[in-house]
């Protein structure tokens, strides 16, 4: 059982090592000379007086939700694609088409509802 998962583990390990190296190496080698101005916010070269955080409008949240919704859909299509190729059964193909059709209806509803254009 472990044998079949070895490549995944090696791949994940390598990813973590290389990623970590890039992230931390900079901190280790880079010269560190903090000065009071460097830690302040950069606002086009002027001292910035923005104290409270800026609360984002509804439109940003709406677009983010829609993106997540339709992006996860694509993730589902990949394994199904492999399955259709392996089993070559029509039933799986029809099933996935129904899944996509459902999401198309959702997209048209959202589009007509006006959530896609920016306010």
């Amino acid at each position, binding site marked *: 059982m472990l044998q079949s998962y070895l490549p995944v583990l090696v791949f994940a390990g390598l990813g973590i090592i290389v990623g970590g190296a890039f992230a931390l190496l900079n901190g280790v*080698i*880079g*010269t*560190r*000379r903090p*000065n009071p*101005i*460097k830690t*302040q916010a*950069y606002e086009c*070269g*002027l*001292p910035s007086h923005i104290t409270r955080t800026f609360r984002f409008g509804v439109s940003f949240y709406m677009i983010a939700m829609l993106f997540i919704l339709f992006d996860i859909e694509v993730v589902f299509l990949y394994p199904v694609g492999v399955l259709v190729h392996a089993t070559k059964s029509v039933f799986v193909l029809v099933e996935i088409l129904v899944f996509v059709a459902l999401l198309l209806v959702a997209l048209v509803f959202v589009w007509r509802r006006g959530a896609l254009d920016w306010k």
Partner: protein
Amino acid sequence: MEVERETLRGRQLRARDLLRGDLEGKDLEEYVEERLLTTTLEKALNWGRANAVFPMTFGLACCAIEQISLVTSRYDIARFGAEAFRATPRQADLLILSGRVSIKMAPVVRRVYDQMLEPKWVMAMGACSSSGGMFANYAVVQGADKFMPVDIHVPGCPPRPEAVLHGFNKLQRLVRGKPDLGWRQRYNAIGTEEWARFESGEPTTEAIDRAAQAVREQRDMRGGSAGVAEEPPDSWGTS
């Protein structure tokens, strides 16, 4: 890594003891090991830093237009690895002061310079940022080095893009640890400065001798190790 004056002094004294052979035992190993670590790692880092300088989009005046034409295909600065112009000071290494720095803009320039991350360099492009240029008046700071350290001064108004590229190559050699020599070092003209003649009012040969002696003393103290090559540079200005 910029070295503070005291540590440099300390190193020089130890270098003198090393030369005279009265440094041994633990001091010797620690000194050699420290030199070994810094020189190779330092050289490798400097080589990387020199060949991937990220300039900052910081256009002030007419030199900014010539700076843009630096990036375009005819005078391509990408050949020297400096194509990625970053807008924010956080990701930029080189601040090219292209244009005249007015007194209202000086605090902004100083603030943006402070917000850049080390190691960082400054190139004063054009006569106006190097020395106030032709605008010797109330509104222009007479030279950016009045309020911030400047590494490279590129003359011209506006300097031709080739001149800026030459300045950029000089900066790369500076970063790589082999700073191009100023004309006084290159032609061993140290000690002929004017101030030596007028130190005591009227020109005296004695003042010149004292200056030359001071420089000779400085030269053997340095022992020719910390970067300033004794013999003329390998690339005789034709690099």
